[in-house]
């Protein structure tokens, strides 16, 4: 009798393992996306460091790889890291959320292929000096169409695998869906300048560009915050938080910000005054609520859970700290009287870096290391110490980098008030430029550790998986 029972249990386990294997067959693609995303980050940071040197050494690569090329390369690659990192996580999480295999596995491979091809063309066009000449999307416009195309298989996989029921769906499903929807809308909107009605009127062109790009940042924030909330739920085991009215209040506030708060970039543009008023009223409440949710979530985790998920937990905690710092800065630069001075200075860059590296990158790495941990705790344990060091170096150096950006910005404000020439400003700013370039190198070193460790762990776990399946 006992023997029979044992045999049934064994058989059931084998069936479960086999089903799991079928459901999670797309993990290989998710891992490829993770490696691709982190490669974008690494190259993007390298170009950022080169760009930093062009501030302190004016002739550095001036004719071979000028700032006119390094900046768009840096911007494109780090932006792509953010949304590819979020997509990679989704390819991994989707089959786990709904316990069925990815709807169109082949589509995910097509997505990967198109994305790599588009990236190669974009990087090539920058090196060749072919530009579209817009902020963020500085590549020729036809490549934007292919970027849009590369998202289609991802969208099909997202909606057809998840088949979301929005009445009962947790907030992260809403967040991801909104991120995808608005990425499409804003990417199309950012190309309205191709129509003469928008292009020939500088006020309209600049305003719509700020509108599209401001909301586009909101769209990938939705993707990243959704990922953050999902792993928080999995780590704490608390399934109520992401279905709570507070979580949805935060989501709708975030959505309102995504749609309307871009106007704080346009205080200096002579558009209609109500554009600014709407932006100012709505301004920047989103981060406060996210901070509150993370604080609440930290309270729900036991010491054992914190120890087990120590690296993702630390990354999420650092993201929490960056939210608070960025919130203070966001409030300051959203006040119109102060915005007049801070806009167009490195204070805006400090805000952007705090958001992209401090918040988004920490949340995405929390997702990366959470996935690695799911793949096998034993692999992870081996690299726990070095990963912790990478997290600490990145955040410490980022804080210095952030302060350097603020210092550079404040100096520019003082220079403007004293009516000094641009050349004088650049001379005076040299110590601050050195400060942000050198601290930027240390940020690069910290993230290099995180990327290399993550890639080696992913490769190790996938090699063991292959051996096991053989």
């Amino acid at each position, binding site marked *: 009798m006992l023997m029979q029972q044992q045999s049934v249990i064994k058989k059931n386990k084998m069936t479960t393992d086999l089903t799991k294997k079928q459901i999670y067959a797309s993990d290989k693609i998710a891992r490829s996306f993770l490696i691709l995303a982190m490669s974008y980050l690494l190259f993007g940071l390298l170009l950022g460091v080169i760009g930093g040197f*062009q*501030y302190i050494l*004016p*002739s550095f690569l*001036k*004719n071979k790889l*000028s*700032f*006119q*090329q390094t*900046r*768009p390369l840096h911007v494109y690659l780090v932006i792509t890291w953010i949304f590819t990192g979020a997509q990679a996580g989704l390819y991994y999480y989707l089959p786990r959320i709904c316990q069925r295999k990815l709807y169109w596995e082949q589509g995910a491979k097509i997505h990967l292929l198109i994305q790599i091809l588009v990236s190669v063309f974009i990087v090539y066009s920058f090196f060749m000096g072919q*530009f*579209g*000449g*817009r*902020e963020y999307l*500085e590549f020729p416009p036809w490549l934007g169409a292919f970027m849009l195309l590369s998202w289609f298989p991802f969208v099909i996989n997202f909606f057809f695998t998840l088949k979301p029921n*929005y*009445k009962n769906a947790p907030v992260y499903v*809403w967040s991801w869906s909104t991120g995808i929807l608005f990425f499409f809308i804003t990417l199309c*909107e950012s190309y*309205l300048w191709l129509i003469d009605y*928008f*292009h*020939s*009127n*500088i*006020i*309209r062109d*600049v*305003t*719509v*560009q700020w*509108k599209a790009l401001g909301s586009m940042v909101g769209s990938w924030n939705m993707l990243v915050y959704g990922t953050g909330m999902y792993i928080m739920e999995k780590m704490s085991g608390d399934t109520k938080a992401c279905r709570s009215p507070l979580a*949805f209040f935060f989501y*709708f506030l975030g*959505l*309102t910000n995504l*749609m*309307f708060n871009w106007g704080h*970039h*346009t205080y*200096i*543009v*002579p*558009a*209609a005054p*109500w*554009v600014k008023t*709407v932006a100012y009223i709505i301004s920047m409440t989103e981060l406060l609520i996210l901070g509150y949710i993370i604080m609440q979530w930290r309270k729900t985790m036991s010491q054992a859970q914190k120890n087990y998920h120590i690296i993702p937990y630390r990354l999420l905690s650092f993201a929490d700290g960056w939210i608070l710092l960025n919130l203070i800065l966001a409030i300051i630069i959203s006040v119109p009287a102060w915005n*007049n001075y801070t*806009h*167009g*200075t*490195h204070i805006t*860059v400090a805000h952007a870096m705090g958001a992209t590296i401090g918040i988004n990158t920490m949340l995405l790495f929390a997702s990366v290391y959470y996935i690695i941990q799911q793949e096998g705790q034993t692999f992870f344990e081996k690299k726990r110490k070095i990963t912790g060091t990478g997290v600490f170096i990145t955040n410490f150096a980022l804080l210095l980098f952030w302060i350097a950006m603020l210092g550079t910005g404040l100096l520019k404000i003082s220079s403007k008030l004293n*009516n000094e*020439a*641009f050349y004088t400003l650049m001379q005076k700013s040299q110590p601050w430029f050195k400060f942000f370039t050198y601290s930027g190198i240390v940020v690069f070193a910290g993230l290099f550790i995180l990327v290399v460790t993550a890639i080696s762990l992913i490769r190790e776990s996938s090699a063991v998986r292959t051996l096991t399946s053989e």
Partner: protein
Amino acid sequence: MVKILAFITLFTSYLIYSGFVYSIGTESTIIPNKEEQLTVTKGKALYEKYNCVSCHQLYGLGGYLGPELTTAYSDPQRGELFMKALLQAGGRRMPNFHFNENEISAIITYLKYVDATAVSYKKK
């Protein structure tokens, strides 16, 4: 259901608001004549082709390695001749793009047009 309704309401407001921004919210009183408009368009196309946005800002859009250009035309410290000299030979950080006279003139006309629109900017 409340959530879905809230989303639909917000999304509809967003679409209507976008329509206003695209039209009455961004009307410009500075409209160049037809001939000038052609040169402005040419200058803008050059500004985009050479990715000037990576180093210079117009209305806060762009990089910080080079100076802000929104009001460069009417700035007593810079002005047309100063900009012309830089466009002809490049600068300490700015590469020499080997623009010809027509191209230089088109870029300056474009910056002159931007300067004329910068009413709120000059109030700063």
